[in-house]
């Protein structure tokens, strides 16, 4: 479903990703863990080409997005992203946030988009907020709306870049529960997170990124019980006090 071949990314002289190879099969729940600045965001943003790799190939759903004139916008409709800062459209109501792209980009009818929007609002427990504006919601509620917005694209892949890092502690759980619920379905998921509990509970696979390199790659058990590298052990000892 997702394939990164020898992907490198430079920012000036800084090398944020170093010849990364990664294959994510359909339906897998992949969690990316790593210290700050290790390249987690850069990696996940390469999957939908918000960052263009300096070299290497990104192949999503059989389409090479790094090829000349690749249909990037078309593929992005299938690859929904949830951002750390939610990035809801502040001038649109919750319902409009969720229906805008399906109507304008995908050409779904307004009725159909609205009906499925309510379905996903139910799923994240926010049906009664449909007519509110993002600024009228708490952080946790905004992120759940962002997840509903992503779901209403009926994506094949969902990308989460630290979806709970901007939230007050008491709101983290409500968002994680929604994501864990999604993880029980068949969708392919890539999640950057510092929530180790989430990784243990929802991930099929964990990769540990350090300084632009994948140091660990395996099951959550492998990662937490039997890490191979000293860097990983050091990171885990700091984070799992």
């Amino acid at each position, binding site marked *: 479903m997702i394939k990164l071949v020898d992907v490198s990314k430079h920012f000036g002289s800084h090398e944020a990703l170093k010849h990364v190879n990664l294959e994510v099969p359909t339906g897998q729940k992949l969690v990316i863990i790593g210290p700050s600045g290790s390249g987690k965001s850069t990696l996940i943003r390469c999957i939908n080409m918000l960052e263009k790799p300096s070299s290497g190939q990104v192949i999503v759903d059989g389409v090479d997005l790094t090829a000349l004139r690749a249909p990037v*916008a078309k593929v*992005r*409709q299938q690859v929904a*992203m949830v*951002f750390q800062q939610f990035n809801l*459209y502040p001038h649109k109501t919750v319902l409009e946030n969720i229906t805008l*792209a399906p109507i*304008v*980009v995908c050409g779904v009818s307004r009725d159909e988009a609205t009906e499925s929007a309510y379905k996903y609002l139910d799923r994240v427990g926010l049906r009664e907020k449909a007519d509110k504006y993002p600024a009228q919601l708490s952080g946790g509620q905004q992120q759940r709306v962002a997840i509903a917005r992503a779901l209403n*694209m009926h994506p094949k892949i969902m990308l989460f870049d630290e979806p709970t890092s901007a939230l007050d502690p008491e709101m983290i759980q409500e968002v994680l529960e929604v994501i864990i619920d999604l993880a029980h379905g068949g969708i392919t998921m890539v999640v950057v997170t510092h929530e180790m509990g989430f990784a243990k509970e929802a991930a099929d696979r964990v990769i540990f990124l350090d300084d632009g390199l994948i140091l660990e790659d395996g099951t959550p058990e492998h990662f937490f019980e039997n890490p191979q590298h000293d860097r990983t052990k050091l990171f885990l000892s700091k984070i799992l006090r």
Partner: protein
Amino acid sequence: MSELLANIGFLQEGPFSVPRWEALFSNFGVLVDGALVTLLVASLGLALALALGTAIGVMSTSQWRVPRAFARGYVEFFQNTPLLIQVFMIYNALPIIYPRLFIPVIAIGIMGVGMYHGAYIAEVVRAGIQSIGRGQLEAAVSQGFSYVGAMRYIIIPQAMRVVLPPLTNQAVNLIKNTSVLAIIAGGDLMYAGDSFAGRFGHYGPTYIMVGLIYFLMCFPLAMLARRLEERTRAA
């Protein structure tokens, strides 16, 4: 005392004498006609300036080099040469290059102020777009919006709030700048006033009245700009 009486003579003769005012008011229709031409040129010129300014403002924030360079060139050219030269170019030079081309003077006025203020509005639009956080564009394109679609549905509606006050100021400047038409006999308010004044030498009352009419067109807009600015700051 006699000196004071002598000074009252300014009511009978001199640049602001009563007969001059009377002459102006009995020919007031001339100024009304001119004001209507000015309003026409200003409104169509503003429409052109908004269209150009939005398109070029969007181009100047584009990720591609060619539209960015074009926008930069356009803005620098029109901001750094006098409006008067641009109008003369259209008025004098174009008919030499295309002898069969006939452009009505009013259309020259519309193109002149439209293109000139389009450059300023492009800068206003660019600043407005850049005031919207990067995350908005990223969210939009990650949903499959094209760059132009993201601008249209997500970025520009938000930028609108920021750019409305400076846009209104541009409208005020545009109205005043339509007065360059007077130099190419454009039939606008300035031209109408000036030719009337010149015929009989009624400069004093006419210029005061013409100035007052421009003021009445511009002042409400200037007030509106201030109100919008206060509202934006409050939000």
